């Protein structure tokens, strides 16, 4: 491969950012400034460098985190280091919405304008107006930030030098102990004083009410988001160099958000994760039992609350028996497709090709979904333990945890948990002294809903554009790096813990015959107590809504998120099971239950769904790339129309929708018409 690189050079900052991820370049062939004598005698690069291509995405993050955008010089340097053709590197950088290849301010404010954050667009405008063009802050509308229980949500990211020790996408360190203590020192937000303050601003008490911590700005520096280090660290050493900081605001108001945009290190801390769990502390929970009780930063506390007993059981009974237990438990994948997990594991484990990989899909980007975030923030070790068990069962020695880029707190906590587990021998060459080697690498997404599709996720990790692959071959046969791969989402994986601790039989007794076990539901919208609810399969939609405080004037419920469907208020007896929702002609999807009261303008919601799919289509296949645009156009035309005036466009929508469902490559295009169709057929929208 004879690659051509232009003349553009990286700045010192960009070079440092890339080198922090990849290590310093060894020769002029891979971008070192000075040519050594050896460089004249042999060429370096080739296969060895190309095998590192999967570090492209971490490298792009490093550039973006450091200077706020990906410049020509920075990108070329990164591509030279990895022997990636610059055209391909550019194609990857422009694929993700969190990267920019044009200069932009160091601080970017992303305001969620998705379904649960109905007022996001106004907030976006208000903050943009307050900041003005001179502020050096870019304000962007964002798809769902996964903070639906505390809507409206916003994420502030200020580019800068990484805070000490915490690199944004850490490479697997040779010496895990080196990072452990440092990370602990940076722990934040779980502190009790913050929890107390946040308590008062519980979102259930009215989304429109201003949060109590709004007037607490300028407080102590410890109330900051993860990557900021010690208090007073941003201006460190008087050099004026800014550090990389993120701040998550939810609920966000124009005042607090403007303030946070100008000085993200002073933003109020996020409330603890358990505030998203109205049932926190309740007896009988299986998946959420530790959230609120366990210190998410403490491995000891996790073990004191029953942690790592499931892994010991797994080692006691062996991989084949683990798969048997999971199969007997009847566990179905919770990511939306409901595929039997035991069968997937068995198929992966039995592949002769090696190595096998385990991938945890934590790219939770379905609008209205936030359950994985709450687990990762409130009980991160449970996911680490589950992944270890899954890896053991499927014969994998490396697990990739693909986390969406919009979850800085989950990243920080998982990062810390993995380092701790590694330091304590719960990850690494010899897990629990059982002679089984397993490690976990976190990969950060960069703003692309499509990367939640399993094969698109593989491409994203491998350093390609996050476009789905056609199936067959299926991932269990040819997945990540072309090797057998088991991919499960977060909720599916954490179900493995109760299966092993209570036994398959007892687990299968929960729920219904076909949908076994507990299920997490993300309730948001017009309810009194939005949050994550854990119920055994079989509870009805009405029971769930009653639990979360159903409004009197309920107009519709969106089940399963933007790719799901609407149901009417007279259909609340639908049992929340895979078979029950299927029989009712709808879907459980990712567990979204978004309640809309009669004040919510339905046509606008449908338009937002269409916009979402148009924005998130990867553009690979024609039905999705053009179909989502035509769908949005038709909905725009009929936004104020009904009856005969809308009939022609509704027919057009049906024809395009049918083709998207039949002929698109992946699930995104295939489901992009579901919600709109159900609104027309079940709710009588536009009648």
């Amino acid at each position: 491969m004879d690659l051509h690189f232009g003349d553009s050079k990286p700045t010192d900052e960009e070079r440092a950012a890339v080198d922090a991820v990849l290590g310093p370049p060894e020769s002029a062939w891979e971008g070192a400034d000075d040519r050594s004598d050896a460089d004249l005698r042999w060429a370096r690069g080739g296969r060895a460098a190309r095998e590192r291509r999967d570090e492209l995405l971490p490298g792009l993050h490093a550039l973006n985190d450091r200077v706020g955008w990906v410049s020509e010089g920075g990108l070329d340097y990164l591509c030279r280091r990895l022997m990636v053709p610059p055209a391909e590197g550019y194609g990857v950088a422009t694929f993700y919405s969190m990267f920019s290849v044009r200069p932009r301010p160091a601080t970017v404010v992303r305001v969620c304008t998705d379904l649960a954050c109905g007022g996001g667009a106004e907030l976006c405008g208000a903050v943009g107006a307050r900041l003005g063009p001179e502020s050096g802050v870019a304000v962007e509308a964002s798809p769902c930030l996964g903070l639906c229980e505390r809507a409206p949500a916003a994420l502030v990211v200020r580019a800068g030098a990484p805070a000490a020790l915490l690199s944004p996408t850490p490479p697997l360190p040779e010496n895990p102990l080196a990072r452990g203590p440092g990370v602990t020192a940076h722990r934040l937000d779980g502190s009790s004083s913050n929890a107390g303050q946040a308590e008062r601003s519980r979102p259930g008490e009215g989304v429109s009410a201003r949060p109590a911590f709004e007037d607490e700005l300028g407080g102590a520096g410890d109330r900051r988001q993860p990557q900021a280090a010690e208090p007073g660290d941003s201006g460190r050493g008087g050099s004026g160099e800014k550090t990389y900081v993120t701040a998550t605001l939810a609920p966000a108001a124009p005042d607090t958000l403007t303030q946070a945009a100008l000085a993200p290190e002073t933003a109020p801390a996020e409330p603890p994760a358990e505030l998203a769990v109205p049932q926190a502390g309740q007896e009988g929970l299986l998946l959420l039992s530790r959230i609120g009780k366990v210190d998410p930063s403490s491995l000891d506390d996790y073990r004191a609350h029953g942690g790592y007993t499931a892994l010991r059981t797994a080692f006691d009974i062996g991989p084949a028996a683990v798969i048997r237990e999971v199969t007997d438990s009847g566990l179905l994948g919770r990511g939306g497709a409901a595929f039997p997990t035991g069968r997937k594991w068995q198929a992966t484990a039995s592949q002769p090709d090696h190595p096998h990989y385990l991938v945890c899909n934590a790219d939770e980007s379905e609008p209205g979904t936030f359950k994985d975030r709450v687990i990762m923030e409130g009980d991160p070790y449970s996911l680490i333990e589950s992944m270890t068990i899954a890896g053991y069962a499927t014969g994998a020695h490396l697990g990739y945890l693909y986390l969406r880029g919009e979850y800085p707190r989950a990243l920080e906590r998982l990062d810390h948990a993995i380092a701790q587990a590694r330091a304590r021998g719960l990850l690494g060459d010899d897990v629990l002294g059982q002679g089984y080697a397993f490690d976990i690498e976190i990969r950060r997404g960069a703003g692309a809903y499509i990367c939640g599709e399993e094969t698109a996720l593989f491409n994203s990790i491998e350093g390609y554009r996050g476009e789905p692959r056609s199936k067959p071959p299926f991932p269990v046969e040819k997945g990540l790096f072309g090797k057998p791969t088991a991919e499960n989402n977060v909720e599916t994986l954490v179900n493995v813990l109760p299966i092993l601790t209570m036994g398959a039989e007892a687990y299968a007794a929960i729920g219904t015959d076909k949908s076994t076990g507990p299920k997490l539901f993300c309730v948001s919208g017009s309810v009194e107590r939005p949050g994550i609810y854990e119920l055994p399969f079989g509870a009805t939609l009405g029971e769930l809504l009653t639990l979360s405080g159903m409004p009197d004037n309920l107009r519709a419920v969106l089940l399963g998120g933007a790719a799901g469907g609407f149901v009417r208020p007279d259909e609340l007896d639908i049992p929340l099971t895979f078979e029950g929702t299927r029989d009712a002609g709808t879907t459980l999807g990712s567990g979204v239950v978004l309640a809309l009261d009669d004040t919510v303008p339905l046509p606008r919601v449908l338009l937002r769904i269409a916009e979402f799919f148009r924005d998130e289509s990867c553009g690979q296949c024609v039905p999705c790339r053009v179909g989502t645009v035509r769908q949005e156009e038709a909905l725009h035309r009929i936004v104020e129309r009904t009856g005969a005036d809308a009939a022609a466009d509704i027919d057009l929508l049906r024809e395009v929708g049918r083709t998207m469902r039949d002929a698109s490559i992946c699930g995104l295009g295939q489901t992009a018409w579901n919600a709109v169709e159900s609104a027309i057929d079940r709710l009588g929208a536009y009648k």
Partner: protein
Amino acid sequence: MTAVPLGIPRRLVEFTLDGQDARVPEGSTILDACRAAGKDVPTLCEGDTLTPKNACRVCVVEVEGARTLAPACSRRAEPGMTVLTDTERTRHSRKVVLELLASSVDMSTTPKVAGWLKEYDAKPDRFGPDAARLNEEPRVDNDLYVRDYDKCILCYKCVDACGDQWQNTFAISVVGRGFDARIAVEHDGPLTDSACVYCGNCIEVCPTGALSFKSEFDMRAAGTWDEERQTETTTVCAYCGVGCNLTLHVQDNDIVKVTSPHDNPVTHGNLCIKGRFGYQHVQNRD
């Protein structure tokens, strides 16, 4: 005499194609089987020398038991499979896909599309006059070829031909996302600043004319391009000893473009800059 590579012997796969028994060598696609059976399945992104990306979705067929339609160009025939190529469902999808394409890009120079639009009763105008289109100006930044993305259907063939399937130059890539996705070189600059080596192999595979010879582009603009009056002569390139085949397209005793036969076992249609573009000296008549 042309050498014909035979390859290793392969087992036959038996399946049902439109109610008829079909037998194809293992590894064949449904499209191969359709062509062997003389069935006409429309294709755009499929090419005879590249692995299809199955992005255009005009060749979709119904496979019994599958939830969605399958691309005939990529789905391999499996024993016992039941395939239907011409049902109401497949015709509907092909029709709408053709409408979606023709409403968003200029397909006037895409061979066969006019016939398919008629055959499937596709009406690209029905999305209304405000339907989003690419509406891009042709990019003319060098004397050899023109990129007219208003005609691009994002079939990925040029990317594959420039990349690891043919040329190994990797000068072009798909950039952006969704409807805004485009083919571009690094940093979306002019071709002259890119890694392009001007082999023209991307033009060779482009199914729509989005990539074309500057000579053809200029003649079309001047209204003098007339394929009826052109003759094609296949000969051997005289520049080096490899022996690549050239097909000279000649109009009014002038070479107007050079292609290469895809069934040539040495080059499969590949040429270098000299073979493809270095013909000016032949017609220097001063």
